[in-house]
């Protein structure tokens, strides 16, 4: 039991100090019928480091790792190269094994990092302020809808059909219990976004309109008109960004009038990790700051006048406000926020723009190549590093056939929107800097054979 430092003589000496004759004396308050007499039967006992590692190695081998195959999956989680520096720094014990910075005098490392992170996120999104992170993009999205309801004092949100269907599901789950109304729709497999539908739907009851940018099919639409209509009716525009690298190439939602911008930060620094942990990004206009959920880090001075950082505006939060808090969130995604921030610092503006340009150019080239395959058409006119193909057959079985050939060939709309026959031929393809020309060629050949 390598993680337990007490020796048997230690335990005896400590029991004597306490005045207990055995450890059982310390559990006297547990009702007799609930006390377990010994280790739970049927479960294995302790194991060596080597044995545990071997067990996991065997399980890990049963998965197809993205790096080992031509890989084109996106739809809310993206494979990017993460510099080795990122993973080295987040494993420093001072970051890895610290708690939420409740004692700021000995947590300036985490706090300064969070202040930098908040600034990076705010600037990337074109907003005034950002918080210290949420769990992920989908939960950040519901928090934004909930916050917009508090700001507008209304309970009806209009959701774009281009919003990730899992984000819609999360919002539906919560809205069902909070009594909010959500207007949703399925996307159509065409080049135009649903901006017209959204503008039409906004009225004086609307708390917010929620638009993903680029959307689930990869399309990029100008948000300015939606923002103008929303503001004219006292509603807020919530923009959702699932691929923040895109904002190295395209205008920020804040510039186009978004009031709250949330996102999934996974694609910068965090890695795929089979869905988590990821990092929710949350930014907004300064005037809404007191309605924000989650932790905020702020600048101040210490007793000698030196600059320092603290968690602040905590009167919004659960540990002070309890049932009147803006959210119940406590632990967030601190270490993933650190990974995001380190990667962003390594990139800098120049690196981010270069990375975005490389992603976009690779995606454009791949889209041309793949849409030349018989039976394949490109749905998008505009896109960043992700686009949707319409195949001549349902895409879902094809994804499995591609996997049999060792290709992780995108996300089928059939998986994302089960039971929507109009969408079942759609296949979302993400092309990041990790995809080679050879990978695209391999996918094109396989698609041609399968569709023939």
């Amino acid at each position, binding site marked *: *039991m390598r993680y*337990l430092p*007490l020796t048997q003589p230690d335990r005896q000496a400590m029991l004597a100090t306490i*005045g207990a004759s055995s450890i059982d004396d*310390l*559990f006297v308050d*547990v009702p007799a019928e609930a*006390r*377990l007499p010994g*280790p739970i039967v049927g*479960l294995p*006992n302790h*194991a060596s480091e080597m*044995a*545990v590692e071997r067990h*996991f190695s065997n*399980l890990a081998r*049963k998965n197809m790792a993205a790096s080992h195959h031509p890989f084109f999956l996106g739809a809310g*989680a993206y494979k990017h190269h993460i510099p080795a*520096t990122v993973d080295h*720094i987040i494993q420093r014990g*001072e970051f890895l094994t610290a*708690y939420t*910075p409740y004692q*700021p005098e*000995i947590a300036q490392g985490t706090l300064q990092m969070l*202040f930098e992170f908040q600034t990076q996120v705010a600037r990337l999104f074109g907003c*005034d302020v950002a918080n210290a*992170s949420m*769990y992920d993009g989908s939960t950040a999205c519901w928090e934004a809808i909930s916050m917009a309801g508090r700001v507008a004092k209304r309970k009806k949100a209009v959701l774009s059909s281009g919003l990730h269907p899992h984000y819609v599901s*999360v919002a*539906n789950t919560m809205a069902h219990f909070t*009594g909010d109304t959500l207007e949703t729709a399925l996307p159509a497999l065409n080049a135009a976004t649903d901006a017209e539908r959204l503008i039409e739907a906004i009225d004086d009851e609307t708390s917010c309109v929620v638009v993903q940018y680029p959307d689930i099919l990869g399309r990029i*639409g100008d948000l300015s008109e939606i923002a103008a209509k929303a503001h004219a009716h006292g509603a807020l525009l919530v923009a959702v960004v699932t691929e923040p690298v895109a904002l190295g190439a395209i205008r920020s939602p804040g510039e186009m009038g978004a009031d709250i911008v949330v996102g999934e930060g996974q694609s910068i620094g965090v890695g795929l990790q089979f869905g*988590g*942990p990821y990092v929710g990004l949350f930014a907004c206009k300064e005037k809404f700051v007191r309605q924000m959920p989650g932790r905020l880090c*702020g*600048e101040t001075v210490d*007793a000698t*006048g030196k600059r320092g950082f*603290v968690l602040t505006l905590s009167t919004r*939060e659960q540990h002070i406000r309890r049932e009147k808090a803006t*959210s*119940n969130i*406590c*632990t967030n*995604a*601190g*270490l993933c926020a650190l990974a995001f921030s*380190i990667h962003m*610092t*390594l*990139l800098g*503006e120049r690196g981010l723009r270069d990375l975005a*340009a490389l992603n976009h*150019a690779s995606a454009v080239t791949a889209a041309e190549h793949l849409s030349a395959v018989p039976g394949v058409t490109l749905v998008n*006119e505009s896109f960043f590093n992700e686009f949707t193909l319409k195949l001549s057959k349902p895409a879902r079985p094809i*994804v499995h056939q591609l996997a049999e050939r060792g290709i992780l060939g995108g996300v089928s709309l059939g*998986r994302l929107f*089960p039971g929507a026959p109009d969408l079942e031929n759609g296949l979302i393809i993400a092309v990041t800097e990790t995809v080679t020309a050879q990978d695209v060629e391999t996918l094109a050949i396989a698609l041609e054979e399968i569709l023939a």
Partner: protein
Amino acid sequence: MTINQSGWRPEMGTGGDDTVATYTGNRALMLEEALIFEIGDSSTTGVDIAPALKAAPRLGGLERNARIGLPGLSEPETVRHYTRLSRQNYAIDLGLFPLGSCTMKHNPRLNEKIARMKGFADVHPLQPQETVQGALAVIQELAVWLIELTGMYGVAMAPKAGAHGELCGILCIKAALEARGEDRPLILVPESAHGTNPATAAFAGFRVENIPATAEGRVDLAALKARLGPDVAGVMITNPNTCGLFERDMKAISDAVHAAGGYVYCDGANFNAIVGRVRPGDLGIDAMHINLHKTFSTPHGGGGPGSGPVVLSEALAPFGPIPFVSLMKDGSYKLVEEESAGALHPQTFGRMAAFHGQMGMFTRALSYILSHGADGLRQVAEDAVLNANYILRCLEDVLDAPFAASGPCMHEALFSDSGLAEGFSTLDIAKGLIDEGFHPMTVYFPLVVHGAMLVEPTETESKATLDQFIGALRSVACRARQGDAALKSAPHFAPRHRLDETLAARKPVLVWKEAELAQAAE
């Protein structure tokens, strides 16, 4: 372009202990570090990116032309920046971190290694399920352990942290009531509860009422029974509770709540005290979240990520969230999502996050569980409780322990500020401990004790460390009782003296702005 063209130098400290000025503001190994916005610039990058292919852009005419304002650093500067920042943090790797209710235990590095295996770390959540069978097997194996350790019927693995787990449990309760066709708007919460409990209930649309505690620090069973009725959806109880005591009447509480038609939610933040010794399922609990970042050693990372699986009773399991992993008859693992939920899990309350839980925390937690095994986990609880009682009994002569007469504590020892000199408070003791090289305990929580100090040593501390901590806390407590003025200005040796939190809240500065620097220079 340089974002800060005037360069940066840390402010010179004046007064306090900083009587000897240095040119840099540094103190040997205590190195000041500027913000990236002050040392970086937007034309510097620490990565080499291949030139893009020539391709006509298809960005819909929405090119971003304006400056973003993101500074870059070269790789060596980046490593140094964050390494310097890291050294301004206290951490479990450096010493005892006795935050009550937070279970800051040793984070084994084997877990880090395993979480980084390509087959777990480099797998996309939407890959075809036949390509992720090993990952699904990990989730299932952990799920089985959590069910066995708690004696419950099922487990929801989706929640992303403890408070998210609370939400999961509360939504299960709400869905179960809906299925019964009942509208019960009220959740009862003890005064001593974590703030997340009432916040969660409110977040899910419930009203919250407090139930009082007895003089010995436990839920007042009679008061609870008196409040139960057809409007009560359930209770949220922490056991062991936030005073560090086991709720002796837990089974009676559960029975009373069930008899009144309600459900029992247990906040499992303190599961470390009882793992392997008591199964919550034997106490009539309907739902309990387990903070993998507490009991099961996944690192807290300066504020997360967490992971909060929720074990569920047979009454609530049908309502748990999707997606979840199911072991099929042919031995394969299936991820039950929206499509198959209709057939396999028809009463689910739905999805609560985009994908399927905190995989990176699952691997770490399972690695920890397998390392300890059933025998080791039982020893974990015993050592955690032993350590806390040792601290309680070694300090009760100098610090008021309001519930010491109630019997042994569980995994955390609770003290109050009673007996300190006029003008001295819990905060002074906390800051004094910082100078002694320890992270302070949880302070001013639970709210039911004046100036509370909640000390949770965990099982991963040696007796020598505990003895040193006890000596340090004894010394600081005595200084506070005697009114040692130097304690009021502690910490003296930390990277910063006490920080002005009032200023931070009154004039919030939440992002760095170029203009500030200009003002400061005036």
